[in-house]
């Protein structure tokens, strides 16, 4: 299930500057596995010690907060665009 994942500037230092990837994942758990493998440094910035999504990180699917779509149970559709957006971050300094 090819989907696109957009990575914000704040996280790109953990992805060697990569801002977008296309990958196959059918749900959030699978997406995390893909990201863990591809960008091992990113993991602790997205999830806490218990594996929970960090409190101040929001995940959107096609502009909708994934929590409104069922969160981890949401099944990605082909062509979904996933956004990782820190809840109050952003900006060029």
């Amino acid at each position: 299930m090819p989907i696109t994942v957009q990575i914000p500037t704040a996280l790109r230092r953990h992805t060697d500057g990569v801002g977008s990837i296309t990958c196959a994942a059918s749900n959030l758990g699978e997406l995390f596995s893909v990201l863990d493998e591809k960008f091992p440094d990113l993991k602790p910035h997205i999830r806490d010690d218990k594996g929970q999504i960090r409190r101040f990180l929001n995940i959107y699917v096609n502009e909708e907060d994934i929590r409104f779509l069922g969160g981890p149970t949401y099944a990605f559709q082909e062509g979904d665009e996933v956004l990782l957006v820190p809840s109050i971050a952003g900006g060029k300094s």
Partner: protein
Amino acid sequence: MSHYELRCRECGRTWGNQPRSICDECFSPLEVAYDYDALKPSVSRERISQRQPNMWRYSELLPLPQGYEPRLPVGFTPLFKAPHLGKRLSGTATAAGNLYIKNDAVCLPTLSFKDRVVAVALANAREFGFDTVSCSSTGNLANAVAAHAAREGLKAWIFIPSDLEPAKILGTNVFGAKVVRIAGNYDQVNRLCSQIADEHRWGFVNVNLRPYYAEGSKTVGFEIAEQLGWRLPDNIVCPMAGGSLITKIKKAFDELIKLGLVEPKEVKFFGAQATGCSPISTAVKTGSSEIEPQKPTTIARSLAIGNPADGHYAIKTIKGSGGWSEDVSDPEVVDSIRLLAETEGIFTETAGGVTVGCAGKLYRQDRILPDETTVLCVTGNGLKTTDVLAGVYQTERPIAPKLAEFEAYLQQTLDVDEVPGVVAATEEVAGIGA
């Protein structure tokens, strides 16, 4: 050497002073931390009280660049007793002497408490080299950023949900700001702004300037304490949208205690939301420390943030103080706007209706007691949200400019059962002393 710098609220790492809102290490929000020991000798009640009556009188406790000359007399809004409202909300005469309104409906220059936060954010925007400032807004912030940007000679790009009240859109346009209407709710506008902030080097007051911006809210707390005669109230009732204000009033009180300007006191913090957008009050009521985001459906558009950025900290502030959070329906919001206007002569916007309505509930639940000093924070002006009162009042037929016509009209009016306002409808409130 500055007496303040950014510090991570969770891991404590310091970041100096820069336009940045999160810690790269743990992703948590940054806030401004001060060197209180260095500040202590230069701050006193006497020195503050000799200064001009505006929020800049607390400049040592604000993150202001060295040599910054304020260009607008923001803040120092009235705090006064609300005896008639106190009696109405509590059902007792005791509360009449103990309830206060902090009235930011008359904050300059744009009639909401957002003038305070924007004043501090823009003081820093130029220092950081921005020539354009921006924000996502439910209206009041839009007005404030546009006005202050005009005054500071900065360009302004304002992003708003397209369904905002016309007065708030006009009140942004008039300052020459570029207004971008987004077909979505505030949370969607806010998310878009986080993405835009990644692409354009603009000073977003509530994104990359957020730690500085949020400090402006503390001046509400400083003023309440000073206006009460340098003492803290027992209770604060505060409207909540993003959840920042309530946490910053708490920070203000803590700082005044730390600097010896007021006696230590445990103040209870009470949050107020509209039922149609109540992620913070829902969390408090269900005992959760985390926010479940909501899709807002309320006339209180200035509070319609379903995924509040500071929700987690607002919950902590409320619970840690022994306070509570309530929410009220849209009809209760309208009734409460009218109640405040008819009892105390203050015309507030919907957020103020939310605060007054929730305060009534808190009195009825005995969470706020009549003999406690309680301050309600009214944060915005009713002239910006007149649309919610559409249909409440009928347009009277005009009469001829003749005395006889008026006498007949008067007689007719007295004959007919009066259609009372919300005050007279249920209770006579005359005779309560101020």
